[in-house]
């Protein structure tokens, strides 16, 4: 486990008597990619704004790189970068001009960095084209380029693949993974779509109506969404023996409620049921179970599941 980069303690934010965030407590550790998932209006951007210093919590506190006072946190912000809601760019400047503006603001002397980063995000070809003439995807790339200028230790991205074409989504996904692996960068990335983040993130924070309702790792999510055949029977030991000897599989689990989760033969339920029956297993329950990522997310937030 890497060191704790960010820790929030019961963060609450109230806007016009409406609680946008309620007692949000999360921990981000070094070198991991966290997906912050929630519907529109769930509080994702508000949480990111508070961490970035653009907004202030009504109650609660947070620690950035282990520092907790306002002055210390402000100093630590030099180690983070963010792009919230939409890329903050100067529309009348070129991509390179925008990068130079931000490079000067951060006091970075290396002029070659501009070209390197433009190359990295795929905007090296834009030359004298002004940012106001960029497509939404190009603006997103420029926003990410600006965020990467300082080689931050914590990168906060609010819906960064919005407006990107499928190829662009793949490129940004690969870029984020590479940054995480090569530079041990911690990334907090938001989306309202769990499947969209599935191939990028290592950890998930699910937020709903301003509250954190679940925090889980990729492994835990995989387990939660894994498909299996649930077998209920009178003698689970005998059933397990038949699965091992006759069907030659050990890819199953005997659960505390004495049912069995079988992860093989998902597309051949007939063979499993026939084999168990022929070998004297009395079946009381037999069905295919498991969730799609989308349904799992909808179940968590209490929404309507897709059939």
């Amino acid at each position: 486990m890497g060191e704790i980069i960010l820790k929030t303690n019961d963060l609450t934010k109230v806007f016009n008597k409406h609680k946008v965030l309620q007692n949000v407590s999360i921990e981000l550790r070094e070198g991991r990619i966290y997906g912050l998932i929630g519907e529109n209006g769930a509080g994702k951007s508000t949480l990111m704004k508070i961490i970035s210093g653009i907004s202030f919590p009504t109650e609660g506190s947070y620690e950035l790189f282990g520092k907790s006072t306002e002055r210390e946190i402000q100093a630590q912000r030099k180690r983070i970068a963010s792009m919230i809601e939409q890329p903050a760019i100067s529309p009348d400047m070129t991509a390179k001009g925008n990068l130079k503006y931000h490079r000067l603001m951060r006091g970075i002397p290396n002029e070659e960095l501009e070209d390197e980063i433009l190359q990295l995000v795929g905007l090296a070809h834009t030359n004298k084209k002004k940012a106001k003439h960029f497509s939404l995807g190009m603006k997103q790339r420029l926003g990410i380029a600006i965020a990467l200028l300082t080689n931050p230790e914590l990168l906060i991205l609010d819906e960064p693949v919005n407006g990107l074409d499928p190829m662009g989504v793949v490129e940004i996904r690969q870029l984020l993974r590479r940054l995480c692996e090569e530079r041990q960068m911690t990334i907090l990335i938001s989306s309202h779509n769990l499947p969209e983040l599935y191939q990028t993130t290592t950890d998930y924070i699910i937020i709903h109506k301003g509250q954190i309702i679940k925090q889980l790792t990729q492994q835990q999510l995989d387990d939660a969404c894994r498909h299996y055949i649930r077998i209920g029977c009178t003698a689970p030991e005998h059933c397990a023996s038949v699965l091992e000897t006759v069907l030659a599989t050990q890819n199953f689990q005997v659960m505390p409620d004495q049912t069995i989760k079988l992860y093989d033969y998902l597309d051949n339920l007939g063979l499993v049921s026939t084999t168990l029956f022929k070998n004297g297993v009395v079946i009381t329950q037999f069905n295919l179970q498991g969730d799609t990522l989308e349904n799992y997310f909808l179940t968590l937030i209490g929404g309507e599941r897709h059939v």
Partner: protein
Amino acid sequence: MFNLVRSDLYKTTHSKIFWILLTITIACSIAMFSISYGIGNNSLNMSLGSVGFLISDMNMMTIIGAVLATFLICSDFDTKNIHHPIISGYSRMQIVVSKAIVFWILLFTLAIPFIVVTFIGLTMDTTFSMGGVAAGYLSILTTSTSGTFGQSIVILLIMTMVYFAQLCVCLLLAFTLRKAVLVVAGYYMLSMFLGQVASFPETFELLHNIISYTPFAGKYITMHVGMSSADLTIALFTCMIFMLVVMWLTYMSFRKAEIK
């Protein structure tokens, strides 16, 4: 904070708006000089004085200063560029002060054409007139008091300070209102209202007395080379105190402000 100033100067000088504003002030200063010279030497009709006053520094700097403040600050709120210095670890105080420094540097650059023509006029042995109405650099140019080189420079610099102080209200408006239209309209209405107060001191007695302690007082917008050192010192201190108060108010309004 030096980096903030540097980056804002880079952005501004790479924008068309700044160069358009500079072109306007150059054109207006030449026109102001020419018209006041023509009227002063009876080669132009006195009725042109109202046109000359319209394009003189007092009117132009009011509009240009407000536009400059919106360009520097409101556009950053619109494009969300204001997020970046905060995320980069700059304090809100540093952001306000750096914006003010950039604002004053650019304002001085835009005022240079008016300063230059006024200085040229002061060195010429001739009469300038705008037919009775004059304020700001135009007032210095048309007041028939001759002074030394040093006095001319000092009075021009103090007049520039008066503009700095008056227009720093635009910074407060820009950080508070955040919308360009509101800032330009708000400041223009304020300056018009203060002009009325100065014109009718009996009607707005209390307000007039209060304004007399600010750079908007009539005595500061109608300065001339013959003013005493004491008056100039008071003008300078009034401007500096006013700027400090307005900057403090600006910081207080932005200190804990939510940014969309």
